[in-house]
Every structure is written in C-alpha cells, then in structure tokens.
C-alpha cells in the first residue's frame, strides 16, 4: 500500500472524531451558544467508552454511555452559562479543564491498556476500485457519521426545527417574542453537542486508536471548534474541513513510516499549524464570516 492509498483509505476514520465534535459544536453555536469545553467533553466520552469496552460491555454500550456522560457534563455548562448567565468563554474553559481532569482521574488505572476496535464494512464492487477503493471500506461508526452529517445538513436546510434553532441564535429576542422557548432550545442544542462530542471521544478511544493514554484527545476538541469557523457553520463544509484534518494527520503518519527526514515534533504540530494558517485565511474574509456567522454567539439571553 503506498502513501496515497494509505491516506485515502484512512482519511474518513481519522476525520470522524473531528467531524462528530465539530457538528455538535456547530449545532450549539447555531443556537447562539459558544461551548469551548469540547476538548473536555471528548476526553470524558473517551474514558467512559474505554472503561466500558475494556470490561466487555461492548462498543454500542460504550458509545451510548460516552454520549450520556458528555451530555451530562455539557448540561453543567448549560446550567451555569445559560441558567446563571455566566461568561460562556470562562464556563467553557472550566468545563474543558474539569472534563480532562475527570478523564485522567477515571482512566488512571487503564493507562496503556488496549481494546479491540471495530471491523471494516466494505461496500461491494466499490471497495475493489484501485487507489480509491479503500474509501469504501469503513467501520460502522464512520458510515453513521456520514449519515449524521447529511441529516444535520437537511435539518438546517429544510426543517422548521433547524429554522427555530437558527432564529434563536440569530435574534433571541425576536424568537422569544414569537413564543419560542429560547433557553430550552439552547439547552437542547448544548446537550446535543455534548452527545456528539462524547461519541467523538469514544470513537477516538475505542475505534480509531483503541489504546488508553492520558491526554489522548490531544487538541482535537479545539481543532473541532476551529472547524466550525472553517466550515462557516455549514455541515457540508465542516465535513470537508474534517477530511482535510484527517488527511493531514495521516500524512504525518505516512511521512514517518516512509522514513522521511522530518522531526516527529514538527509532524505532530502539523494539525495545529494548519489550523492556525487556515483560520487566518478564512477569518480574513470578513464578509464571509459576517454572512454565515451567528449574530448572538456567546451572548447571554435576558428577557
């Protein structure tokens, strides 16, 4: 397998933690809530899923419990940031620190242990195509994540639910005047983001690299938040951005495997450097951000 085939085949799996977490954050931000705790929510989901799968609970239970645990933590965020109207940036940072701390605490006795990942499900015919065939052999979570991307896109493009969430984020006062429960919608959006962040962490810990190590999320939650900006709050573009980051992280692996003489530290920081560069390029287009951005993002709502 050459480097190109390696990247094509693994890109979607590498992209999945970014994709799930970014889609969840996008929904919360569309409702006007900036939750910076994604890194901690992912770490929480990762440790819960790992412990359950390690003790033989199975992947399905592991993912469900991870989603629940991260949703619970994201509701703590919601109560303090939305209920008590605290500064969303500060609450998000605190949730991030708390989640990473809890993950390290619970995962302490599992350090360096491994579990079994998930088998790949291949699409007939398509997965036999040379070079890009690997694209069509993915585990079930990747296929479901693709379905979730389409579903979230469709919800925001075509349904009233999507419209209500956007209205709450764009102009909460008007949405309230129309009788929509602003705070309840925001709570739901934050909890939904929590569930997806939990799934993202679970995928990282029990499918993608099924080995427990403290700090294994390694900034992916933060990159997911940046992806929401890259994707200008659109599911389709977030998907493309996640694929870019999947490819970048695999490219560093491929470069190391082929013995390219680049320091491993430079390769490890490649995703962060790409984030900084892309963030600069996208954000300098102020019109684009203004057109797609969420007007009330991060602001508390008072009747």
């Amino acid at each position: 397998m050459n480097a190109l085939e390696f990247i094509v085949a693994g890109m979607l799996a590498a992209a999945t933690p970014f994709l799930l977490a970014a889609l969840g954050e996008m929904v919360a931000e569309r409702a006007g809530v900036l939750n910076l705790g994604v890194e901690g929510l992912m770490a929480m989901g990762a440790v819960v899923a790992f412990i359950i799968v390690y003790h033989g609970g199975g992947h399905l239970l592991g993912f469900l419990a991870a989603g629940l645990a991260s949703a619970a933590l994201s509701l703590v965020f919601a109560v303090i940031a939305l209920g008590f109207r605290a500064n969303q940036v500060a609450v998000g940072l605190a949730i991030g620190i708390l989640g990473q701390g809890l993950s390290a605490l619970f995962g302490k006795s599992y350090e360096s242990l491994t579990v079994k990942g998930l088998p790949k499900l291949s699409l007939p015919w398509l997965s036999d195509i040379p070079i890009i065939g690997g694209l069509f052999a993915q585990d079930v979570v990747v296929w479901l994540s693709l379905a979730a991307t389409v579903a979230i896109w469709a919800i925001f493009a075509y349904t009233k639910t999507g419209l209500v969430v956007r209205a709450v984020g764009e102009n909460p006062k008007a949405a309230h005047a129309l009788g929509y429960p602003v705070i309840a919608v925001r709570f739901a959006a934050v909890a939904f983001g929590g569930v997806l962040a939990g799934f993202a962490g679970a995928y990282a810990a029990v499918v993608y690299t099924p080995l427990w190590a403290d700090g294994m999320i390694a900034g992916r939650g933060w990159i997911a938040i940046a992806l929401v900006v890259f994707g200008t709050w659109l599911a389709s573009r977030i998907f493309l951005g996640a694929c870019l980051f999947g490819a970048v992280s695999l490219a560093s692996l491929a470069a190391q495997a082929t013995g390219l003489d680049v320091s491993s530290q430079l390769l490890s920081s490649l995703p962060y450097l790409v984030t900084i560069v892309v963030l600069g390029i996208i954000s300098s287009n102020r019109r684009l951000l203004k057109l797609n951005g969420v007007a009330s993002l991060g602001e508390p709502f008072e009747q």
Partner: protein
Amino acid sequence: MSALSRPFLPVLVRREYASLAIKLVAPPAALGLATLLNLGLYLLMGRDPVAVFHAMLMEPFLSWASFSEVLLKMGPLLLIAQGLAIGFRAKVFNIGAEGQFILGAIFASAIPIWLPQATGQWIWPAMLVLGALGGVLWASLTAFWRVRLNANEILVSLMLALVAAQLLNYLLLGPWKDPAGFNFPQSVMFQYDAMVPILIPGTRVNVSLLIAFAFSLAAWVFMQRSFAGYKLQVGGLAPHAAGYAGFNEGRAIWLSLLIGGFAAGLAGAAEVAGPLGQLQRSISTGYGYAAIIVAYLGGLHPIGIIFSALLMAALYIGGDNAMVSANLPVAAVRVFQGSLLLAYLVSIAFVRYRLEWRHAAHGSAP
C-alpha cells in the same frame, strides 16, 4: 390554570446595583462549594475525605517548609494571571499563556546553553529579559492573527501553545539535549550565575516572587489609574462606546496580548532560572491554564489575584501532599481547579442578579 397549581420556579432578577458584599463573599463561597463537591468525589473513590482535606488545604499552611514551597509556586501563577486579567478585562481572551510561558523558558535558556562558561551577575537578569521577549514574540503572533487576519484569538493562542509544547520537545530531544544526561529529555544544568538569587534564606523562594508583586502593583496602577488601562476596560465593557470615543480596538488587542505574553514569558524564564535550573519537560505543568482560573477567581482585579494565586499555589502543594499521604491521583488537582472555577462563576452571578421564586408563567409579571 389557577395560580396555585403552577409550580414555583427560581428566576434570576437583575439587581439595581451590583452587590459589593457578594463580590467579596463569592470567592470563599466558591472555595467552600468546590471543596464539598470534591470531598464527595474522594469519598466515592474510597479515600478518607478528612485526610485529603487536611493534606490538601491545611498542610500547605501548617509548616514553614511547605508554606515556602507555596510561595515558590505562587510566583509564576501570580505573574501570568496578572497579565491575563488585563486582557480578559478588555475581552481579549488569551488562553495560550502556557505557550508564551514555554517560549519564555526557551528564550531564557538560550544564554546558559550557548554560553555555559559565562560568569557574572548580568546573566540571570539578561535571561529574564530574554524570556519576557520570547513570551512577547509568541503572543504577537496571536495579536497579528487577531488584528490583521480577524482570526479568533482563543483558538490561535491555544494552537500556538500546543505548537510550543512540541517545540520544547524538539529542543530537548534534539539540539539542546544534555549529551551527558543519559538520554533524558533535558538540557545541561545551568551555571550558578544563571540562577535568580534566593529571596528568603533557607528556602527556594527567589527574587522572582518580588518581581511578581512589583508586576501586580504595576498592573493595579495601569488598570485603576492610567488612561490606557481605562481605554482597555471601556473596550471590554462597551466596545461600541469605545469605538465612538475613538479608542483604537486593534491597539487594545495588541497591548492586551503583549502584556500577557510579557508576564508569561517572564514567568517561564524565572522557572528555568529558579527552582529548575535547567530546561526540562516539567516546566510545562499547566501554569498557563491554571493562571486563567487564578485571574477569574481574583475577580480580574490585581489585589484579588494576589489572594487567588496564593490559594491556587497551595492547591498544587496540597495536591502533592494528598498524592503522597492519601494516595490521591495528581489529576484530582485539575478536577478541583475546574470545579473551583465553575463554583466561582455560579456564585459571582449573584453579584448582578438575585434569585426570586415565581410561578412558572409566560412572561415575567408577578
């Protein structure tokens, strides 16, 4: 539906005047709440909560030996938090102080690593100056991205902190590794003149604590007494008003980030030229992130921050104690830090709001 059948629900009502009393009570209340929650957690983990409480929150203050270690840890936290708080009040969220701290340590280490034979009293001051410069340069990247490219400073500064950690690894595993260091990722030990002089004889507390206090005083003068500081605060509280008044937003962002980078870089330099005496991986133990909590817990006020830095330093020392005496994992300190900030954010809400019990009804009329 009759009024009686509707449940009473708590509602936050904005106060006419912000309550100063609650502002002062909030931090101790938050500490109490966080302590209770965490002791409950330790109980669930099968640890003796009384023993942990004693080791974590009492012992650091009970002997001069451990209190001096608290003072040692307080230096960098105080310095970084004072710098960050200035930015936070201007609503410039530099959360990558950890990266600026690491760059400060790297820049400062360049002198003893490149000039291991040099002697003279100029070395440690030069290291501190160089370290501050390193922090300023690293923060200036974020400032450029924010002001010129309109990029979110939260994300850029954090990404740069992650890059800085890799840069440190690269130096310690590659060009700056001590050739006689048994392959450990650390630099050579620095010469005597590269060390900040000890402030209190018999302890490891050095002059950098004095510098941190001097910086706190400067921060107080800047924020409470200078026009530049006033402009920063107006920009944070009322950006539109600041714009109409002709206050330059870009300049405020540059100033906030550079002050933050300066303080964090200085703190990083003081760590390698102080208790560590060499560049090693353990310089990055999350001071930059803990300082965010210190800044908020101190009410973003230079005087409050002195107390919160002392508390956070004691938590670090207490956490180490509890690890030894009560077998508590180190991660418990991070959990405590996170819950402390959350508890503070809840309690501080009551400065501007009061709780009122009302019938659950549409609209807000009683």
